[in-house]
């Protein structure tokens, strides 16, 4: 039987063996791609630090890792939430930020060197449900707004049955799952609901943390997913990529034109195309007109300063954005995001030119 001391010795030995490997990252197993040596000695590696929204984090992490490995820079990103990302961006403790809710004019005004927001990708928000035996669920606008207002409370409600003629809807109460924490996802979803329902716009209205009249609250997309998976009769809103990766069933929603649409790249891009991008590149597709559009879609923005005194950082950042807009967009679909439509990419490229160095 291992005595405590022997166990300690084993663990410590393992620890030391591993930390020795950490002292020489260049010689670590190359599977993670950091084998590429930085251009010059340490301290000369260009480092970019970003923080912000958690919604695009998986895609950003993938981009930044691939970009860092190939160019010998180190780009890091941590999801702290859109609000904290904007705060850090204003405080100048990061090199760039990210936000699902863009920035308000007051917030932009507080950045002394000026801020340039550029949409980098987009995503759809789906209504995932847990109904054993129901293979496809079509929800009309009135119904899904009503569910989140607490007006539609049972699954075999006639309004739901009307749009699902072939399905056998159980006599279960609708267990609504909403977000406990403040989030950009809630902001976009509540914004959409406010656009399609006057009652919702009055209360709870558009907010990062709306006071939902009904529903159990779970923390984060992962909390909502866990609740959905373990509660029969549950329905909640999550990001499309999340629902897809976790195998959740998604409802087909009725859009403004009256058509029932699933969330996918085509319907997402149709929604984005219907929202004209103004000069500051901030727009909300709260209720797209297009008949093939999926109704709940949003851009997510990268926050850049208008001026970067460090030329190397500026150049690295511009290259990074360029990579993201070209090769990077190819990765978007696999991870569950909507690639930017071509015209949008062109406008973003133009906007990036206004980010300068020097001064």
């Amino acid at each position, binding site marked *: 039987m291992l005595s405590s001391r022997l*166990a300690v010795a084993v*663990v*410590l030995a393992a*620890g030391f063996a591993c930390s020795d490997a*950490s002292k020489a990252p260049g010689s*670590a197993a190359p599977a993670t791609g950091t084998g590429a040596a930085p251009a010059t000695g340490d301290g000369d590696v260009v480092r970019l*630090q970003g923080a912000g929204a958690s919604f695009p984090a*998986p895609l950003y992490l993938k981009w930044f*890792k691939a970009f860092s490995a190939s160019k010998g820079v180190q780009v890091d990103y*941590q999801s702290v939430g859109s609000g904290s990302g904007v705060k850090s961006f204003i405080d100048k403790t990061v090199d760039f930020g990210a936000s699902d809710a863009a920035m308000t004019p007051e917030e932009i005004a507080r950045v002394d060197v000026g801020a340039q927001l550029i949409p980098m990708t987009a995503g759809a928000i789906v209504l995932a449900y847990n109904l054993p035996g129901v293979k496809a669920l079509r929800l009309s606008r009135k119904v899904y707004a009503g569910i989140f207002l607490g007006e539609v409370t049972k699954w075999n409600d006639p309004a739901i049955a009307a749009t699902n003629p072939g399905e056998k809807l159980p006599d279960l109460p609708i267990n609504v799952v909403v977000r406990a924490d403040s989030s950009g996802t809630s902001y976009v979803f509540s914004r959409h609901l406010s656009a399609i329902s006057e009652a919702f716009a009055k209360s709870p209205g558009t907010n990062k943390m709306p006071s939902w009249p009904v529903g159990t609250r779970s923390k984060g997309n992962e909390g909502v997913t866990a609740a959905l998976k373990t509660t029969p009769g549950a329905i909640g809103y999550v990001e499309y990529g999340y629902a897809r990766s976790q195998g959740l069933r998604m409802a087909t929603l009725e859009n403004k034109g009256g058509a029932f649409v699933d969330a996918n790249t085509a319907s997402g891009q149709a929604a984005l195309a219907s929202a004209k991008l103004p000069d500051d590149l901030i727009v909300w597709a709260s209720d797209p007109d297009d008949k093939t559009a999926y109704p709940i879609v949003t851009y997510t923005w990268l926050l850049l300063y208008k001026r970067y005194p460090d030329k190397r950082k500026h150049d690295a950042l511009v290259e990074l954005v360029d990579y993201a807009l070209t090769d990077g967009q190819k990765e978007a679909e696999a991870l569950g995001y909507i690639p930017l439509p071509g015209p949008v990419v062109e406008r973003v490229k133009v906007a990036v030119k206004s980010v300068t160095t020097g001064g």
Partner: protein
Amino acid sequence: MPPDASAVVTQDLNPFAGIDFSRLERSLRRPRTLMGFLLDTLVTGTTALALFPLFSVVWMLAWRGGKRLSVAALTQLPPSPMEAGGGFGNAIVGSLFMVGVATLLTVPIGILTAVYLARDGGGRLAGAARFAAKVLTGFPSILAGVFAYGAVVLLTGSFSAIAGAIALGILMIPTIILTAEDALRAVPARMLEAAIGMGATPTQATWMVLLPTALPGILTGVMLAVARAAGETAPLIFTALFSNYWLVSHGHVAAMRPTASLAVLIFNFAGMPFDNQIELAWAAALVLVLMVLAANVVGQTLSRRQVTQ
């Protein structure tokens, strides 16, 4: 009761002379014995029940993350989404660094403060300091992070491992101080008096008698504090952020840059919809628990050696 009551001793010295052992009885029908037996069972049962969560959690970690535990996982950098393999080596180094720095900062300050509170306990400064430490016990971990953001990150202009260590230190210090003070007070007064009677200054008495005797109790407090700090996420998100690169590279410790840590890695990866990341999160949690266990055992070994010296 002596283990061998039938040892051969002289009649006069045998305290059990004349007692017929076959007539001694321990009957559960006696109320006092029954009460004792019931309480024994209750306490044993409750303790066993209390250990159930531990086994449940460790089982959950081992079952969900055990298969990812390998040298590769301990030495590689975090994978990006949809990428296989990878590990959390930099998070281990980061956690060790930040908890280590926090411990180095708080243990001396904490013990010295506790010495002051235990020796000069009645004064106004002592009373106020003790009260301050108690107020800090209920400090939510996220506030420690927010405060350290304002005090350190904004001052230095960047997220850093040092800021993370400071935030952790704020959470550790009340436990260390209050436990150490109680441990110091528990040292019998006559030991101190003996030392002073021999001519020791109060400082010498503290160093040669008080601290060594109270060391096990102080160490308990330190271990509790370290265990807590190792697992805290919220303070680190606002101070040390996270990094997908090594803390130490080319012989240079990047202490003033964002740093990875096991707690934040678990938080990040558990919230992602990719199985690779989720499994790594569980494996990292298992590694974290084992590391703290190792620290505990090391601490106990050190304390035992000190006492028997």
